[in-house]
């Protein structure tokens, strides 16, 4: 449930559905409409703020961050780390460059055929 909130907001912000400065639903409103406890939404908002995706103004609720450079940078770093990991695993399995490219294509095709939003932890 926590992960669903994170994925939903991250996807919409990075896709530009929600623009910088735009107000997010209040914690209680999002909790009630998605049937998730207030504390879970609160935790998700705190973690999204730490990742630079949203900003919380005391007493005024949360908005999409004006500058997404920090969030972008963190996601870039996380992607680099995953790729380095993937290369290490491929080396252990004895896959060459072409085979690793092929595996990436297979995973991309699989991801495109399932309509779920991108899953993944915040960096």
């Amino acid at each position, binding site marked *: 449930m926590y992960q669903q909130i994170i994925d939903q907001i991250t996807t919409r912000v990075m896709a530009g559905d929600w623009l910088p400065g735009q107000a997010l639903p209040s914690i209680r409103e999002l909790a009630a409409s*998605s049937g998730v*406890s*207030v504390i879970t939404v609160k935790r998700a908002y705190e973690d999204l703020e730490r990742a630079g995706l949203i900003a919380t103004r005391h007493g005024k609720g949360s908005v999409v961050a004006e500058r997404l450079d920090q969030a972008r940078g963190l996601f870039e770093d996380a992607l680099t780390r995953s790729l380095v990991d993937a290369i290490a695993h491929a080396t252990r399995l004895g896959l060459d460059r072409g085979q690793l490219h092929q595996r990436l294509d297979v995973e991309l095709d699989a991801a495109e055929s399932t309509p779920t939003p991108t899953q993944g932890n915040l960096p």
Partner: protein
Amino acid sequence: MTAAFAVSGLCKRYPHFALQDVSLTLAEGEVMGLVGVNGAGKTTLLRLLTGLAAPDAGSIDVLGHRLPQAQVAAKRGIGFASEDMRLYRSQSLDWHIALVRQIYPEWDDNYAASLMRRFDLRAQQPIGGYSHGQRVKALLLLCLARRPRLLLLDEPTTGLDPVARAEVLEALADVLRDERRSVLFSSHNTHDVEQLADHIAFLHGGRLLAHRDKESFLDDWRRVLCLGSLPPTLANWPEVAQVRSAGSQIEVKLRAWRDDLPERLAAQGLTVQRVDPMALEDIFVTAVRAGGAA
């Protein structure tokens, strides 16, 4: 700010069961899920909070009113629904509504009408012809439409089909919009508690094993898979709730997770393969089997 309820040193003795030394507070605007096996004391605690039973020791404050002295004032703000409450089988839901709205001036006709639609209930039909799920939903409607500041619900989703369960959970989630309303509900369904509760209170054998905010409660538990040979003392670590081994694979369930635990397991000659968070269901079963230490 007044707590929704606060109990301290609460004891209640029955011939075959005793609730022992329970101290627990729910802040206004929060939702608490009460978990425990059958006979853990969940219903006893709810009955004490509603004033239906009197404690042998300890204090109970509900919405700022001390029980039993200020019982009348407290009860005005409480909405209690439990499976063993009976509706009049020969009378319709409309008849019950007319009865309840006479007693409670806060009754909200619009809210009642919207719940009637959401729960898909027929107002004119005698309750005797309702299914179990419809009776549960009718009881909840009678309780919710009063807009009580503290909802006490004993197993509100037990015995409901998945559609009725979703309807009831959505109606409960709506209550969250109002930050002055609080909910305490008991459930065997740990998934419902995991979804809706801000706080978890865990009763076992009449004692309160744990009460924490849900996120940090879940954060404390991890399931770790290792490879290696089972260190004989591992089961005695205070952090370890359960150890199981199959061949060279060892599964360790930890009740007090810390970031240094993988290193400490590695120092025992184990190779840590993966660390996963645990669902409340798994935590609940593990804690009960471990003799009730959460």
